[in-house]
């Protein structure tokens, strides 16, 4: 079994498949984290038969503003580093 080898084409296909699946697993994990965090931030009342006014908009904006915050922080840090180096 240890000596069995796939041919090169199959090995590449397998690697691509596994990479794509791992990317999907990472995306799933991020969606779970974002849902948990945005739920705590946006859904403050007792759950009703639909989202309250404001809750739905908050949830829709929460993801994009969180990612904007991430980009803002990275840009700020890079700006400071380039200032320090010049």
């Amino acid at each position, binding site marked *: 079994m240890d000596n069995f080898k796939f041919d090169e084409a199959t090995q590449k296909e397998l690697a691509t*498949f*596994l990479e794509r*699946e791992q990317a*999907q*697993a990472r*995306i*799933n994990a*991020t*969606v*779970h984290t*974002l*849902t*948990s965090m*945005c*739920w*705590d931030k946006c*859904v403050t009342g*007792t*759950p*009703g*038969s639909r*989202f309250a006014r404001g809750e*739905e908009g908050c*949830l*829709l904006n*929460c*993801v*994009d503003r969180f*990612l904007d915050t991430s980009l803002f922080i990275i840009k700020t840090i890079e700006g400071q580093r380039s200032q320090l180096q010049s």
Partner: protein
Amino acid sequence: GVRSEIALASAQELINKTNEKCFAKCVTKPGSALSSSEETCLSRCLERYMEAFNMISKTYTARLSREREQRQLAQI
């Protein structure tokens, strides 16, 4: 297969998270049994959490593909 294992793990995680969030929201003072108002709250909470998960999943994947396009445009 790998694919169904990932989907299963994600469904399991969704159930665990729903459990945690809806218990926190609907069962504030645990009594000797779940009351009918707690059960109503739980089933609505479950629907809302699943809805939130689907909304956020769409928003996030839309953002990812928008950013991928921008990077590809930037390379031209």
